[in-house]
């Protein structure tokens, strides 16, 4: 009779969080990484090649890590090297604020903290056999490069590959040596454009959408991967739509304020999506109707 007043509960039905958590690892503890190479690209951007002291980092293109400097803080940074490089990985960092400026002062042999990899990454296997169209604006080349390198190493797994890359001026182009190499390959297309050319510039001039307009694209077999500043997305999407590429064949990588990278801190939310967990890569048709996405 008392059963109805005091409901019966199974005493073993403890909240999940209270079970088996003795051996769960510390979610905020960074691993130690050592800088084994530094390349200065521009006044603002440097590339760092890093090796973890204990492990090697397994990741897929499009994922990111939290870089930690004890005493300064953490910043989300994309992985930029090919996932097949074993033992070491590369990041490319623009000097923006406290963490990134401190990073710029580090040299070969210095250590830093790494958490991750986090995020979903690009759907690499889903686009085997397809035409790949990479559209990079400014720093957007950094995460795309990981996928580009992978696709060049595994060239026979993909059909046509076209890389479009735009920057404000020629001096801001990153990975210049590699761009030359890619341009000479013959088995892929590469088109560069800048807003403000210098006297030696022989590439295109103007916004990146013009490159799309002049490219030969087979809309039925093409998947587009777009990364760039917020203003770029809308125009690129419009142009690609005009070329006949549908919303479900466009992938964007989005940037938001991030503090945890693991879906807890709430900072990166776009409506109901977490950029750190559900993204940073989103299929455009997935986020098209989210009021806070673009």
């Amino acid at each position, binding site marked *: *009779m*008392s*059963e109805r*007043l*005091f*409901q*019966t*509960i*199974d*005493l*073993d*039905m*403890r*909240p*999940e*969080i*209270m079970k088996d*958590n003795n051996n*769960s*690892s*510390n*979610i*905020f*503890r*960074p691993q*130690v990484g050592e800088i084994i190479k530094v390349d200065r690209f521009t006044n603002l951007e440097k590339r760092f090649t890093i090796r973890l002291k204990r492990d090697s980092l397994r990741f897929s293109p499009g994922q990111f890590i939290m870089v930690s400097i*004890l*005493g*300064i*803080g*953490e910043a989300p940074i994309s992985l930029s090297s090919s996932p097949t490089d074993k033992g070491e990985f590369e990041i490319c960092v*623009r000097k*923006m*604020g406290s963490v990134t400026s401190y990073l710029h002062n580090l040299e070969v042999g210095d*250590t*830093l*903290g790494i958490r991750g990899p986090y995020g979903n990454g690009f759907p690499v296997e889903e686009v085997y056999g397809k035409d790949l169209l990479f559209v990079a604006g400014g720093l957007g080349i950094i995460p795309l490069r990981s996928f580009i390198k992978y696709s060049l190493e595994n060239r026979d797994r993909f059909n046509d590959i076209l890389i479009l890359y735009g920057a404000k001026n020629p001096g801001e182009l990153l990975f210049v040596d590699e761009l030359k190499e890619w341009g000479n390959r013959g088995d892929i297309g590469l088109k560069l454009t800048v807003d403000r050319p210098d006297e030696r510039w022989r590439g295109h001039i103007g916004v990146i959408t013009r490159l799309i307009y002049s490219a030969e694209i087979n809309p039925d077999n093409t998947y587009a991967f777009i990364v760039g*500043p*917020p203003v770029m997305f809308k125009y690129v999407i419009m142009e690609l739509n005009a070329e006949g590429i549908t919303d479900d064949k466009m992938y964007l990588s989005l*940037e*938001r*304020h991030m*503090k*945890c990278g*693991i*879906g*807890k*801190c*709430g*900072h990166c*939310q*776009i*409506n*109901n999506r977490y950029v750190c*967990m559900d993204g940073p890569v989103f299929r455009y048709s997935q986020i098209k109707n989210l*009021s*806070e996405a673009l």
Partner: protein
Amino acid sequence: MKNQKTIIYIANRDEFHSYLLSQPYNIYAVTEKEGRYVFADVNEINDPGDKYTPTLLPPKKYLYPDEWILFRFKRGREEIFEIEDKEKRILFGVRPCDINAINLMDKIFSDGYNDNYYAKRRKDTILIGIDCFSPCDDHSFCYSVGHLDVKEGYDLLLKDIGTAYFVSIGSKRGRRLMTKFTKVRETTPHDIEQIREIEKKKEGMFINKFKTKVDNLPLLFRSSISSPIWEELGERDLGCGACNIDCPTCYCFDIQDKLELNIEDGRRVRDWDGCMLRDFTLVGSGEIFRASKADRLRHRFNRKFHYLMNVYKKSHCVGCGRCARDCLARISPVEVVNSLMV
């Protein structure tokens, strides 16, 4: 079957309090402070019973403290010192709304990456709840959002009948705590009658303050993304973020490094943060993704009644009324829901 048993005891209030105080736990209970209530470290238990109104800060401050140290470090060398949190505590007098809020937090922090920091504190905290028989005040609406009934999460749940408690047990450690307490007796038919009377009185005391059923809220909020209500509320909002701090289900945080005065030692801390604050979505390029107060209010309420509710099938506002009680602009979830209904 052994574990599946409803166990009820009657315990004399004062004797039970003394027993708890003699246990090897730090006890945090409801106490009065300048005319309001707070959870605080206590030497004696003086629960206000049916005079209770929700505490200034919810008990989340013990499970998920502000300025929570994640680890200490020495600058320059990648040396990290994890902190061992040894405190075992009892939270006494947690009301149904707040127990349900803790249940929601349990899910949030264990989903995906299991938050070992939260899990540890949760595991080291015994929750002793006290049931409510009448609405605590005009701001509360726990019943409207389905959070007056508490089904799990507590170790013991008490029904206060003046000089004694009916004690129901919600976990093994709750049972252990009660078996060591010898001064209980089993319930008699008379006790059951008495508790039935109280439960009967409770019916009708609580009403649905929303003009719709709670289950309809995700749809309501989804279809109200471009409602003019958000602009109107945004005009009134002061952007102080007090509602985020007060709320038992708000858990967003910032992570910061802080240095000691010798500037060699430091600590990485997790601070409470709030989606109502302007810089919450600021990125390096200077862009703020929810730049207006209207955007931020819409986000906060969508989290409570839409985004998280769709995932966990429960309202992520438990109706404690804290945000409304202390809002200088008098913005309340009840008003928000009902104005979206017209």
